[in-house]
């Protein structure tokens, strides 16, 4: 187990290093100069822009910039935002909680809704429930969050006045954005669950469990879901990891703080220190959720446990 965890940790660090390197290279290749973007509209002269470039270290060779970043990282310093003028670490810590609560809430809703729809479809195959569940899953997959977010604001904020359309001050501010993202996630989860549950329902051990007189609910919960949920859990975990990097569109539509807005500004303004910081957090979250997914799947299915976590 420890060997496995150690191996996964090394893989995770390697993934983060690759992500950061790609960010460096991408920003170098992206058109536009950060110093010019920051100062052009303020009337700075060409010389003043050149001085700012030098101050930001933009004229240094790429390997020098990378090494400087690594050295600062080892000291726990993520640098200062070129755009905001504040320490990146503090900015990430400030924005992360809103993103984390949205990601977790959306994943919980997506998981509950997706698994529910999937099970409904699989256990009522061919009937109207199955059709309805499939249709809902397809709609959720094909509806962009920008549109569903605005629709939710129109109905629940403007017309019904049930929930606010903006902010992150409490639970009631979380409901709409979490629902929008959760419904979007539910579609892919529902389709996976439906297929797997339908397969497992045909297996002899399930027939045997039914023949022994076990209630349908117990058969589903204990004997069917455990082997069927593996792929869905992986998707949920990966989506959660993705959301932990910031749901840009949803945060923008619902005027919520979060890492998504931070990274969007960083990309638009070529604010490399912030981009590096958020990518680091996103890569760590993704790696972590990947590991959580594998461990969860192994816990669910003993047959996989031996393969993934061989006894030392």
């Amino acid at each position, binding site marked *: 187990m420890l060997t496995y965890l150690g191996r996964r940790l090394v893989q995770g660090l390697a993934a983060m290093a690759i992500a950061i390197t790609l960010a460096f290279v991408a920003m170098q290749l*992206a*058109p*536009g*100069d*950060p110093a*010019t*973007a*920051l*100062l*052009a*509209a*303020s*009337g*700075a*002269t*060409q010389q*003043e*822009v050149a001085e*700012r470039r030098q*101050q930001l270290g933009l004229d240094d060779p790429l390997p020098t910039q990378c090494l400087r970043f690594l050295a600062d990282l080892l000291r726990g310093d993520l640098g*200062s*935002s*070129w*755009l*905001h*003028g*504040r*320490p990146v670490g*503090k*900015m990430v810590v*400030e*924005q992360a909680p*809103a993103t984390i609560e949205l990601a977790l809430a959306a994943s919980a809703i997506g998981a509950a809704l997706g698994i529910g729809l999937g099970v409904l479809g699989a256990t009522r195959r061919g009937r109207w429930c199955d059709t309805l569940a499939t249709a809902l899953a397809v709609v959720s997959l094909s509806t962009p969050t920008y549109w569903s977010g*605005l629709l939710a*604001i*129109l109905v629940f*904020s*403007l017309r019904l*006045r049930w929930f*606010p*359309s*903006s*902010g*992150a*001050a409490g639970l009631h501010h979380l409901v709409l954005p979490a629902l929008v993202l959760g419904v979007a996630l539910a579609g892919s989860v529902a389709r996976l669950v439906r297929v797997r549950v339908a397969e497992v329902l045909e297996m002899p051990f399930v027939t045997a469990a039914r023949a022994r007189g076990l209630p349908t609910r117990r058969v589903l919960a204990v004997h069917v879901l455990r082997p069927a949920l593996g792929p869905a859990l992986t998707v949920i975990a990966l989506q959660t990891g993705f959301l932990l990097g910031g749901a840009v569109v949803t945060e*923008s*539509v*619902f*005027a*919520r*703080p*979060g890492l998504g*807005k*931070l990274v969007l*500004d960083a990309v*638009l*303004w*070529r604010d490399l220190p912030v981009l590096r910081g958020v990518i680091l957090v996103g890569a760590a979250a993704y790696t972590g959720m990947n590991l959580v997914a594998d461990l969860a799947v192994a816990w669910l299915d003993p047959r996989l446990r031996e393969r993934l976590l061989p006894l030392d």
Partner: protein
Amino acid sequence: MVRTVRRILALLICVLLLLAACRASRSPTRIVYGLTLAPSGIDPHVNASSELGIPLTSVYDTLVYQDPANGTFVGGLAERWEISADGTIYTFYLRHGVKFHDGTPFNAEAVRANLERITSADLASQKARFMLGPYERTEVLDEYTVRIVLSEPFAPLLDSLSQVYLGMASPTAIAKWGSDYQLHQVGTGPYMFAEYVPGDHLLLRANPTYAWGPSLYQHRRAQVEEIEFRFFTDPATRSPALESGQVQIMGEIPPQDAARLADNPEFRVAAVPIPGVSLMFFLNTQRPPLDRLEVRQALLYGTDRPAIVAAVFGETSPVAYGPLAAVNWGYDPAVQSTYPYDPGQAASLLEEAGWLDHDGDGIRDQDGQSLRLDLYLMGWGYMPEVGQLLAAQWAELGIAVNSQIVSYPEALQIAGEGRHHLMPFTLSGSDPDILRRFFHSQQGFNWAKVDDAQLDAWLEEAARASTREERAALYSQVQRRVMEQALVVPIRDYVNLNGVSARVEGLRFDAQGWFPWLIDVSLAP
């Protein structure tokens, strides 16, 4: 005994209810104000966002204030001032008895500390530093007299000093908070910086001791106890937030929503013209075929600007006919008679320049080359919508337009390299010196790539001239020259459409057009 207990309980309940009622009745009055951008940094000495000025204009006082009605300057933290004959020395006589929100006294040393902070390389100011122009140093003559010394005359200095970016911050707070000062800002203004959660909200609280406002303020103290700012970056979410009561004031309402709000008795639309350079398309005079004056003039004659403005902005925006907004002092109305929509004249000019449709494909050509123009747009300010309509109008003239939407940094790079034929921009600013940024041959925003010694001379002289009359005459010549040479296709003057609840009274904006004077705002029951 039981009766006694009941009486005590009843008394306790009454006391609790009374306390609850008292607490409810003591809730501060609060307005929620919707901002349209989450400011990319909120320190006015560091950051350049215009959004930050909306709340912070009421946190910081400035040395002088500009009257939006006529552009004249009145005393603020400086009661009066003197400018040396050569225009390089500004002496300010400061108001006595002013205190920062943290109790630090305001004086000449505070002014010096602020200007030194703004001009220090470590701060990496993105705007404030450059608003000071050829700044050399600040001298403290006595406790309430301070002198700003420039290396050469710079007429826009008072305009700069009237803006929040050069507002006076508490030196004590700056020293105490360092790089975290953004979250703990301290000024002398009618509102105090109470709380800022980046990306979520900013809260201002009325300053109970404020007593030194400029004569332009209508009230001595703030009328509303708290003002909360929230961020609505998506245009489609702004009207719903206003109509659902989540905010009482919302800026930058889309034109189509403004028309609907204006019909609703619960709201009104405060349309505020913004001074600066109009939304205009720069024509790259160094890239053929736009190196020919006839072709550039043809584009202007071939543009039905009223139709474009009506289609995109409805009746909310005036058509622009020159590079400077009509609301600016120094605007020359003579530009209104240049280039009326005349597709016949446009066609004649193109033919005169040798562009005819030889191969019958609907696009004019010359020596085997089609008349195709590269248009680079940014995704804000309705540039894509206007660009589409321009391309459609010019297509009827036989001009093909290749449009592409790019980010702001990329647009700057393309413009710097001169790879564009056309590129739009708009920028706000109350001093006509803003024209120098776009039409002086050595300036980075010279997207028309013009190298006109006469224009340079007029713009430089206007930045140094000592009277407004001299400056206005020079800027008039600049505007006429820009249009004679067809360097730009002006489209519209910017208007900020603010949706306001009918309960909000006294909302007025400063000379920049963006920044409200919150001290005068009140909330009717």
